[in-house]
């Protein structure tokens, strides 16, 4: 077989294949539910209901989507430049760590300047963590996939070490967790009386900012050029390595914000289970959004819905909650295939 590019794919092709991919994902999900001895339709219904079926569920989904928007944006920005940042997990923890370091009494400032400084510092921490792998890539040609992945493991150990050592909350009854943030360092709620913090608002603003950067600024143009064809970009005078460093700053910074938002908005302190793999899930979010920053918001909501819905379904129907991960991984793989098929035709020869 051979792939032949299609000059102007029709609407049916452009929408049909992604639709089939989603349908197949649903079919697989149903099969898994049946395998677990549950009624597939009821299971899917429970997932939907658990995700958006009530005010509480919907808020839970929005809260869960918040870090995913940040990590999804982080991955989308990096992948756009073909910078394979798989380290959003570590960068998230770096942001969270800085939030705790600055927000537990180090600075006795009023809320607004304090939060602004902490947010910037968290971004910087995430960015710095990605700079190492990028410099290794541009200077020594080390593949950043492996280095960013390995740093995820190192970072978790660093956090673990700090939480059992200097950062350990003396009032924490021996649990490895940090002291709680001071009042001024907590992100306020978005609306009075709704359990949804400003992190969500910040995430939406970030998506908008990234979108503007990508479409309206020279940096966005440079990032896309480097990602599409680094050789042509270099020839045309685009400073490829510098663009990669800027991309890393943006990408790492966004992941760092995820950590800030989780600690300052939701949890109030730092623990080792702050992120159940938000960094990795960000890859799915970004890919499902075709790396489009506004699409990231939608796909983060979808992914968060699947997770939250599956959790609640699992409690009710007894289907293991890992069904959510299977569904998302399947959706990811089928979606990249479907998108290929919208642009190429398979020809037998």
């Amino acid at each position, binding site marked *: 077989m051979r792939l032949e*590019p299609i*000059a102007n794919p029709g609407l049916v092709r452009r929408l049909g294949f992604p639709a089939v991919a989603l349908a197949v994902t649903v079919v697989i999900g149903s099969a898994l539910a049946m395998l677990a001895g549950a009624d597939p339709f009821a299971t899917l219904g429970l997932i939907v209901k658990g995700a958006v079926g009530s005010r509480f569920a919907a808020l839970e989904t929005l809260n869960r989507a918040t870090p995913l928007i940040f990590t999804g944006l982080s991955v989308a920005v990096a992948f756009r430049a073909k910078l394979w940042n798989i380290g959003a997990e570590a960068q998230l923890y770096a942001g969270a760590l800085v939030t705790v370091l600055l927000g537990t009494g180090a600075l006795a400032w009023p809320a607004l300047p304090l939060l602004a400084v902490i947010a910037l510092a968290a971004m910087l921490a995430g960015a710095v963590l990605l700079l190492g792998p990028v410099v290794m890539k541009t200077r020594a040609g080390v593949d950043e996939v492996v280095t960013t992945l390995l740093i995820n493991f190192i970072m978790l150990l660093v956090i673990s070490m700090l939480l059992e050592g200097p950062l350990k909350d003396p009032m924490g009854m021996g649990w490895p967790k940090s002291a709680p943030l001071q009042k001024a360092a907590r992100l306020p709620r978005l609306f009075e009386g709704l359990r949804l913090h400003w992190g969500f608002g910040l995430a939406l603003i970030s998506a908008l900012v990234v979108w503007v950067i990508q479409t*309206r*600024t*020279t*940096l*966005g*143009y*440079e990032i*896309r*050029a480097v990602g*599409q*064809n680094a*050789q*042509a*970009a*270099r*020839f*045309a*005078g*685009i*400073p490829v390595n510098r663009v990669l460093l800027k991309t890393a700053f943006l990408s790492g910074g966004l992941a760092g914000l995820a950590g800030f938002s989780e600690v300052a908005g939701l949890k109030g302190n730092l623990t080792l289970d702050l992120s159940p793999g938000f960094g990795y899930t960000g890859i799915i979010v970004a890919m499902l959004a075709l790396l489009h920053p506004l699409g990231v918001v939608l796909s983060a909501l979808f992914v968060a819905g699947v997770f939250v819905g599956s959790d609640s379904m699992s409690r009710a129907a007894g289907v293991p909650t890992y069904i959510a991960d299977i569904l998302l991984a399947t959706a990811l793989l089928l979606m990249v295939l479907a998108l290929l098929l919208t642009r190429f035709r398979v020809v037998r*020869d």
Partner: protein
Amino acid sequence: MSQQRDEAQVVLRLEGITKRFGALTANDAISFDLRRGEVIALLGENGAGKTTLMNILFGHYTADAGRVEVFGRALPPGHPRAALAAGVGMVHQHFTLADNLTVLENILLGTRSLWRPGLGRAAARARVVQLSADFGLAVHPDARVGSLSVGERQRVEILKALYRDARILILDEPTAVLTPQEADALFETLRKAVGLGLSIIFISHKLHEVMAVSSRVLVLRHGRLVGQVATTETDRHQLAEMMVGAEVTMPRLAAAVPGPALLTLSQVCTPDQGAQPGLKHVDLALHAGQIVGLAGVSGNGQAALADLLAGLTRPASGGLHLAKAVPQDWSPRTALAAGIARIPEDRHKTGTIADFSLTENAILESYGEAPFSRRGWMNWAEAERFAKQIITTYDVRCPGPDTRIRLLSGGNMQKLILGRALEPGPRIILANQPVRGLDIGAVSYVHSRLVAARDSGASVLLISEDLDEIMGLADVIHVISEGRLSPGFGRGEMSPVQLGGWMAGQGFEVTNAA
């Protein structure tokens, strides 16, 4: 009787081969015979369908209609192994060798069932040595292919075919990468092969080679076989006419009026880049109002010189001087700022970004300046206006400025690059293989633009592997060989044979001593 004997001598027969790619008919009902001990030249412009035809014969493509017979037996379509087994060997234009393996291993690749244990190296080695001697193809069987010169790699390709007992050899543009002298050695090998009863299809667009080696010439144009003549009964002029469909005229150039030197290199050296030699003590001056032609066999330092002038590399030693000053920080940006327009060798990989629109590609070199951007903010309206201007001025055929450039033909892509480079009014134009792979119409368009730029006072450096192109256009010719640059020769000062000598590296010792 003789009819019958002829029939028995036919080793390959193509009947009504037709192949379409979408709307394009690459091969239109092509039929011909190849006889034992015969050399057929397949002549045609780029895009005439030569390579497609050979890929069908070799089973890489399946024809939409028609059949191929080898030694009287039909070849199943779409099976390269069947073609190999029937005794068809192909030397591709782009070598199909694995650099990390040795010559012997490359030759052995695919000759044995994949599931057999062992390679039978010893016996194979002896046979390769024997074949090398028989056909005059000197190459060490245990050398790593990555360390071989281009000429040696081609010998490995031919050995691969011979090792598989090929009775029919197909060579796709084999001399494009050779010096005239190396090409002569290749022709000698081919004569030996013919003497041993092999048959050869020689694909080329170089008329003098076709005249030199073939016994019969087939001419392809726009996918159709438009003529078939015995080589002895034709001449270059007639072949050229058949190939293009009209008499070819080289542009008649008025004598150049050279102005001051705009860029000079003095004793410049750059490091080798893998198999690509760097520059060795190069002196060069580019004057206003002059076309300087750089002749040479591919891979002799053209890339090093082009990269240097494009701003991608810096001299390791020696000086690069612009008319005004010695550039402090030499980069693509400073090169552009100094008024150097660059037309890169590979328009697909270096010249354009395939999935970018025409607009986005048009501003690739100038996006950071007004009016296309201010303080980091893009002005897309201005960018699109610029793209439209290039599209009209340079006759880029496309649906519109939003079209992704990958959908354009090579010629139209090149016109956009040309427009992007020439529109700012450059003082120096670096044109690296500017017409490779273009059809005749686009070729003369590009050439006329370069000449017009010269006449309006720009300095043009034309790098080409096509000696005819250089000799037709250049006011001054330099030859590059292994990174060394010959002195400049005026128009008509040197014959092709003399230039060939320089291309093969002769004459440099004398100049260096002097």
